[in-house]
């Protein structure tokens, strides 16, 4: 099924005549800006540090075990990601061998100091949290994580205490919490109201917009950066859009493909800091990173984007 999805995407890309996607792998971000408009960064509210609006997820895609060919492919994907100006990579102990794969690639690319490292603590035994974080750090082959998040709200009371303590000691720079698939939003809202979080992560896309009601406005109000996972519903959204023509006006917001259209929609929400699509394909990461360039859709354009997609799905 995924092979079919890849074929569809490849065919779709081939149909895109403008060729902007391919060019990004060949040029540095600075040069890219000249040809494709401004490189879009957003601020982390708690520090005003700027990060690119497109990051890189690793769930499933980087879980390749000790396969040397696949590890080199991960490194190649990350090479193109960094080349296009990417910074933030997100992982979790839950994602099998994704963490060691990222570490292999960072080491190979000599990017252990440049990456914005975002990982998670995921254990029901709060006493094991510190050991797990240290193991994750070793897998990544980095000195320290930039962002450490509580995965899926697992034992969040205890883990947040650990993470705040680590932040105070300078062992991590930011503290966050995550959920996905639209689950446990009421509990997440309560946590966002009561805890001094730097980041929050949840699912959001052009069809699943429930978070626009409460969580996104709350993040803005509380000064919490927002990472969006599952921007393509793990590829299903793109599969559904195959064969549907991209509106001609998509070019006015710098979109030449559906993935760019979907990503631009997400990162144009004022409360969203970045989206983290995951991929095993160099052509996909290049394509996704184009969403880091050019104008962002305004409120009216976002409504138009929703209306257009909802006409077909």
């Amino acid at each position, binding site marked *: 099924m*995924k*092979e079919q999805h890849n074929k569809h995407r490849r065919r779709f890309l081939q149909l895109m005549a403008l060729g902007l996607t391919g060019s990004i792998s060949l040029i540095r971000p600075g040069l890219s800006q000249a040809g494709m408009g401004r490189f879009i960064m957003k601020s982390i509210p708690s520090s005003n540090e700027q990060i690119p609006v497109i990051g890189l997820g690793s*769930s*499933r*895609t980087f*879980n*390749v*075990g*000790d*396969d040397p*060919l*696949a590890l080199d492919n991960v490194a190649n994907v990350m090479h193109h990601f960094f080349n296009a100006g990417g910074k933030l990579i997100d992982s979790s102990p*839950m*994602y*099998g*061998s994704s963490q060691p794969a990222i570490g292999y690639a960072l080491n190979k690319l000599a990017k252990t100091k440049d990456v914005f490292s975002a990982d998670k603590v995921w254990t029901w035994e709060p006493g094991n949290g510190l050991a797990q974080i240290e193991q994750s750090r070793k897998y990544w082959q980095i000195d320290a994580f930039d962002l450490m998040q509580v995965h899926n709200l697992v034992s969040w009371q205890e883990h947040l205490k650990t993470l705040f303590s680590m932040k105070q000691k300078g062992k991590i720079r930011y503290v966050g919490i995550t959920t996905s*698939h*639209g*689950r446990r939003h009421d509990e997440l809202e309560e946590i966002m109201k009561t805890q001094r979080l730097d980041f929050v992560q949840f*699912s959001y896309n052009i069809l*699943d917009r*429930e978070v626009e009601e409460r969580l996104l406005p709350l993040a803005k109000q509380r000064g919490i950066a927002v990472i969006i996972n*599952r921007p393509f*519903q*793990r590829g299903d959204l793109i599969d559904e859009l195959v064969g549907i023509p991209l509106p001609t006006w998509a070019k006015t917001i710098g979109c030449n493909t559906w993935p760019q259209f979907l990503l631009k929609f997400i990162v144009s929400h004022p409360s969203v800091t970045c989206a983290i699509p995951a991929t*095993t394909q160099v052509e996909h990461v290049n394509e996704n990173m184009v969403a880091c360039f050019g104008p962002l859709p305004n409120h009216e354009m976002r409504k138009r984007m929703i209306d257009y997609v909802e006409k077909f799905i």
Partner: protein
Amino acid sequence: MISYRLSDFILFSDKAYYRQFELYNHAIWPLHLIALVFSLVIIYALWKKPAWAGRVIAALLILSWIWVAWAFLFERFYHIHIVANWYAFGFILQAGLISWYGVIKNQFSLFVQSKFRINIGLVLLFIALIIYPLIAFVTGRSWLQFEMFSLAPDPTVLATFAILFLCKVSAVLYVVPIIWLLISGITLVVM
């Protein structure tokens, strides 16, 4: 709003999954020759039904289940699937059950007479020993990703099923293979 689907619990791609077999086959060569001998001995034992058949079949199954548990599920599959260590535990449990019912109680020497069961058993055995290793090649994957009885979980479980059908054995012996076929079937469909 979306919620979990079965595929959300499979955190590896089909490509990564099948590559594990390629790497595994490369790493364990030439154990495939021993596995082939296992297959031939089991076929001979089921065909000629010598006095030693039951305990030898059981012993070869025990070795196969333990090997798959350790060498594939724990040492390899666990790298990409965080619950594969539990699968390995299930395979060890089945090896223990076969030891009790097959070696100690010698139930694999009690062959069924039912034509229906014999036919089902032989078809399953043919699929496990002959068809399954060819699937990688037939479906366009690298032939090096083949899965073989005694070395890979699916054909080992399928061949065990076949032998259970051909023998009058305790129903307890069906439990782990049925659970595995469900797990593996769902995994292959949704990954």
